[in-house]
């Protein structure tokens, strides 16, 4: 603690206790009669000094943390509290200054701040790494799907046997459906949801070009399903469309294919209708591979798959429970 004379020019120190001398490293005779600005040094914050000078000029008490320097040049953080002392007439006569060395607390605070900044940097880097990895994986998956597609097309070109060709083309259409899903999933901003209507538009844009004689009618409500269901649903829809083209719509003959997606009582209903020969006698199909996997996919999606007589043609109805 020190006391300074507020009325003498430049407010000299008139009292200093031992604690102050220990903290500052000066002898008593070195501080008496001096203004205490000798404690300041090169890194002392001038704004803090200005605030201190203001308080003194206005005769107000104040608390500041100020960087001071010992006699040996060693800096220390000084939690300084100054209080004015007035005489009976209200005249300012002394200032009492009490000092606490808070270097350890300041160091801890700085370390904490540095640690927090480092943590933020690490988190940011981790996020950047994760994003880069996601892009890389996305890129590889797309390229691999492209490779699989191209391999299937190449082999189809080389295959002369009609049945083998047809099988390869079916596989190609299935892989393309999955590829379309993947292209769509990463194009959207939401990686968790999959937009069924946009997928069907993509799928039909691709399929229809080979069969210009077929008139395509789309009536699609916007329906989002969880991304995990995207591939099975896309495959199932692809099979139904494929089936319509194969059995409902005779190549070279005009026909009509319509697809409808809508919400109905907590379900999503996807209907694929053609105007072909419709249900066979007895109302059931032979279980071809396409129908087998469509039924399996429907099971996986907890969906029901039914075939009805359209007017005319065939109406395939896939009904799956809506989520959220």
């Amino acid at each position, binding site marked *: 603690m020190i006391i300074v004379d507020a009325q003498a020019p430049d407010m000299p120190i008139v009292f200093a206790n031992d604690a102050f001398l220990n903290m500052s490293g000066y002898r008593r005779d070195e501080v008496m009669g001096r203004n205490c600005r000798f404690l300041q040094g090169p890194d002392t914050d001038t704004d803090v000094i200005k605030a201190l000078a203001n308080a003194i000029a206005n005769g107000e008490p104040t608390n500041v943390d100020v960087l001071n320097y010992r006699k040996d040049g060693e800096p220390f953080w000084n939690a300084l509290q100054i209080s004015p002392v007035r005489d009976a007439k209200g005249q300012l006569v002394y200032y009492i200054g009490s000092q606490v060395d808070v270097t350890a607390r300041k160091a801890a605070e700085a370390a904490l701040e540095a640690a927090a900044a480092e943590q933020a940097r690490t988190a940011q880097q981790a996020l950047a790494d994760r994003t880069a990895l996601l892009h890389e994986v996305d890129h590889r998956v797309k390229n691999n799907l492209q*490779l699989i*597609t191209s391999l299937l097309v190449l082999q189809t070109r080389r295959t002369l046997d009609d049945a083998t060709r047809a099988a390869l083309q079916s596989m190609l259409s299935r892989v393309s459906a999955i590829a379309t899903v993947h292209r769509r999933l990463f194009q959207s901003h939401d990686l968790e949801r999959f937009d069924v209507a946009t997928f069907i*538009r993509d799928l039909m844009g691709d399929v229809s070009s080979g069969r210009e004689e077929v008139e395509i009618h789309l009536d699609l409500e916007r329906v989002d399903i969880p991304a995990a269901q995207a591939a099975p649903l896309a495959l199932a829809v692809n099979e139904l469309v494929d089936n319509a083209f194969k059995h409902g719509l005779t190549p070279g003959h005009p026909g009509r294919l319509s697809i409808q997606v809508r919400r109905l009582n907590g379900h999503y209903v996807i209907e694929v209708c053609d105007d072909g020969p419709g249900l066979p006698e007895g109302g059931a199909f032979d279980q071809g591979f396409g129908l087998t996997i469509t039924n399996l996919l429907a099971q996986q999606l907890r969906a029901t798959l039914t075939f009805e007589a359209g007017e005319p043609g065939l109406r395939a109805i896939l009904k799956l429970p809506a989520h959220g």
Partner: protein
Amino acid sequence: MSRPLSVLIVEDEVLLAVELGFLVREAGCVEVGHALDSADAVRLAQDLKPDIALVDVHLSDGPTGVDAAREIAEQAGAIVLFMTANVKRLPDDLAGACGVIGKPYSDRAVRRALTFLARCLQDGAAPGPPPPGLALSDSFVGRWGVDQTAPAA
């Protein structure tokens, strides 16, 4: 059709390049060359002066397709079409390319895109909106007077 358009394929995945060659011929064009890396791509483009260059972003010398595309478009004067799994990484101006087809593409999408480009090049104007799967750059939409009012693919 006056004369078949010449096409340079820039693709480091050889099987894809072979299949692209088939699609190019099926679209009534002629494949004039194939490059695996950016240096070959730029050199072949300058030597062969193709009408169209199909350019992947990742080539055998790294992600150099964008720079190669810019050089091919600006110096060899070819119409560049990107074919990449990295559509999001392309610059906004598509490096002077006319458009992009995202991988994985279908054979139909490529055939339709090539047929569309051939019409644009021969008529100097688009026959209609671009086919599904083909996204055009703004400057080529303007150049070919492409009708963008059709529903987006």
